[in-house]
């Protein structure tokens, strides 16, 4: 990711962004309006138009990446340009405004732009680092394999429980059925294990939180300690070993889920902030000419 986006095409868009920035900064320094530099000078209007066009083009990336049949450049190239030109945008806007900022809707648009760029930087950082971290977390396996392993363990523990009696069969079955990772975005982001288990208690049953299969393991240990039958004790021990494997596996899967959720979540800032920016941009342009 890091190599393919940031170093795309020999960093040509980095150079383009630097060139554009340097050129505009140079013109700004040479430009000598009769009034203080602001958005209303010739250069101000020009830079405003450039910045607006750039914002629209950067936003169009959301459309381009969904056009799978488009022949207008590769998505990789677009993304690389999106990143570098997006980083150049705040400076262009500052020069457009002649560094005149204040508590008004115009600066609101600039602040929103900064937030969009900041969330974009976070996104780039996530995409540059998290895939490797996810691979490391999964130990080379892919997620399907991990889920398959989980299913294997579930199946084997189910079989092992079958031979131990009804209590065990029900407990293990409920533990499997109620194994729960994620669900809401928040639990995915925190990587919380929300598993539960129904355990027999005093002739009835109780539902216990079973994060990391702890409740089930405790219950098994208790039953193992009270078991008089050596054979049964050994079988419970095997079952416990399976569940400990499951606990390790769930931990890995939770980490995987968490990292994946983070890869997705920054867009929940980037995209709505972009929408707010577009709205603020329209408001900025309208109000500037409303009170011309």
């Amino acid at each position, binding site marked *: 990711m890091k190599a393919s986006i940031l170093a795309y095409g020999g960093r040509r868009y980095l150079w383009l962004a630097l060139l554009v920035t340097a050129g505009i900064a140079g013109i700004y*320094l040479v430009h*000598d*309006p*009769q*009034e*203080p530099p*602001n*958005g*209303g000078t010739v250069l101000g209007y020009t830079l405003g138009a450039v910045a607006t066009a750039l914002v629209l083009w950067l936003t169009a990336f959301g459309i381009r990446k969904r056009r799978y049949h488009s022949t207008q450049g590769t998505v990789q190239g677009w993304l690389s340009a999106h990143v570098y030109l997006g980083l150049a945008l705040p400076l262009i806007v500052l020069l457009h405004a002649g*560094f*005149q900022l*204040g*508590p*008004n*809707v*115009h600066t*609101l648009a600039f602040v*929103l732009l900064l937030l969009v760029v900041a969330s974009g930087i976070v996104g780039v950082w996530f995409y540059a680092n998290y895939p490797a971290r996810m691979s490391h977390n999964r130990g080379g396996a892919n*997620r*399907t394999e991990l*889920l*398959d392993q*989980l*299913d*294997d363990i579930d*199946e084997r523990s189910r079989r092992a429980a079958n031979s131990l009696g009804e209590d065990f069969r029900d407990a293990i079955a409920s533990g499997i*059925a109620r*194994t*729960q*990772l*994620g*669900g*809401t*975005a*928040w639990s*995915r982001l925190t990587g919380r294990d929300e598993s539960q288990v129904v355990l027999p208690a005093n002739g009835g049953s109780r539902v216990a939180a079973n994060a990391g299969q702890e409740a089930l393991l405790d219950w098994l240990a208790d039953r193992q300690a009270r078991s008089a039958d050596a054979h049964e004790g050994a079988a419970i021990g095997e079952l416990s070993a399976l569940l400990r494997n499951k606990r390790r596996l769930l931990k890995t*899967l939770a980490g995987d*889920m968490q990292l*994946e*959720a983070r890869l997705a*979540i920054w*867009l*929940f800032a980037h*995209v*709505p*902030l*972009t*929408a*707010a920016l577009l*709205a*603020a941009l*329209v*408001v900025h342009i*309208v*109000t*500037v*000419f*409303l*009170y*011309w």
Partner: protein
Amino acid sequence: MKCLVRFITRGAGGAVEHADKVIDTDSLTIGRATDQTLHVRDRRARLQHARIESRDGGHAIVTGALAGVTVNGRSQREATLAPGDEIEVGANLLRVIEPPAGIDFALSFELADDAGEHHLAPAWSAPVRTLAGFGKRRLSWLAAGVVVLLAFAIPALTLLGPGVAKTLRSVPLLPDDSVWLAGDVHRTHASVATECEACHARPFRRVPDAACGACHESHRHAAGSAPPVLGEMRCASCHLEHNEPPQLISEHQGLCGDCHADGPAGTDLPPASDFLDDHPPFRVSLSVPVTTAGTTEWQTERRLLEQARDAERSNLRFDHALHVDEDGVIGPDGRQVLACQDCHRPEPGGARMQPVRMDEHCSGCHELSFDPQDPSRTVPHGDPEGVLQVLIEYYSARLLGDDATNGAQQRLRRPGQALTRADRDRVAAEARAQALTVAADLFERRACVNCHEVTKVQTDAAMPWRVQPVRLTERFFPHARFSHAAHDTDVASCDGCHAASQSGVATDLLLPGMDSCRDCHRQRHRAAQRRRPGRQHLHPVPRLPRPGQAVIPRRVGAAWSALTCARRGWQPYCCRCLRLAAAVPRPLHRALIRRRRRPVAPASARTHQPVSRWRMSRALLPGPRRKPPRAAARQRLPSSTGSATSWPCFA
């Protein structure tokens, strides 16, 4: 090889259903790939998991995979199959059964209900689509809606009418059209600062000149005397508001140079494209006396300053050098050292000087007394005929008065006897003769002639002296905008520009030429011209935050301030010693700071404080500290202790 595959499904109630399928093939392939004879929907199965071939009259299962295939619980690369053998393919179980008649090989295949589907997966293997129940699209609409509502829709209500606007502006927390302000208005427009419609009369139209004329109807631009070159330009073409810092009159060189570079067409004005290098010398307006038929009229004459160095025609005789002599000038109380300010007092506001007046500034030394025995009696100033009249009346009264001790009277009159007509005439003639003698002394030797041009007309026996009328030019540069107060600094002394100590005659025109201006303005003007021509060149003393204005964290604030200085072409100066950073050697600077750390008020006490001129001039100049001119200015300085400052310091 004819194979029969029996698909077994278990219903919800435990009922077993099966469906048979006969396949005629050389080898029965099993795998996840769709081209396999027996397609297994199980991720744990390989694409080509295994194949069953007929071999030596029996049947064998073969796989190319290293992991082999599990037959009867054992993983093998190749195995001969017999009825009852069980083959595990992922979660699926294939059992070899006895083939019915006409079939070579038979398998039962129990379909697992969730083969290949992980019950955990649906909870989170799909991408995150919502956050707290909001998808990205919904959040986007929400964010954009909030922005439009607060930044536009509510403030736009002010456009409905003045009543709504007034109400909206008075409601706290509700955004009104002040959020559209791109920058503050100039303080001279403070009265209409919140009423946008006062200038922006119609939406989406530029500010019309009529809006300016509503208040500025008597302005000389509005009165029709605007320069003809303006043409279609509007007031707001030059007088732009809402910039930071607020600035109504641009001092940009281009405003002059654009038209004056070659000398404006149709005028005899010389070219002026650049204040420093291409600017004609000053022209000075002089009052010149023109005498016709004995009466003097004053006319204003415009001359080049450099050619009019000795052209002052005030008709006054005055020696500046004598008056400002370091050893003093002889006055009634002995030698007295005079300073410029003793005669030249600034007007209120400090821009210009008050006129010098005889009765205020000169009479202290230049007494107009004439009788040493009666020094309180003086002749009037500014009225030559009156002088003679006063003298005649004085001496007549002395001769004719009722004073018995007066010897002259005793000589003229006997007691009880009135003066005769002849006696009176004699006395009058004597008084007049005495007055003329004293007047001659006053006019020609002792008083008038010191300062005035006095001529004697022998033919006029009644009043033989003529004093040339005097007029001091009030404004030498009537078109210039110059303030003495702004130049009241340590570097710029009076003598530095006016060279009074070098001038012995009143015809000297003691006015500084352009070079005097350039001496100081050149360097800063150059530096500023490169960036922001016409802008203030020095940092105008740290501005403390206004109430409600965010206090920027120190480091960010310092960086921002430095950026602002660079942008405006201000020379950075130290906020602690208030000296130009470049002007003070660093060791000295450290010593200065040690000597007196500049305190900064605590955040709670910070309020907006007007920049005092004194502090500004302190910022300009190296040199010894002096007391601020006003106690109020001193009180304005923050007085709390603490060395922290949010302004860049070049220590």
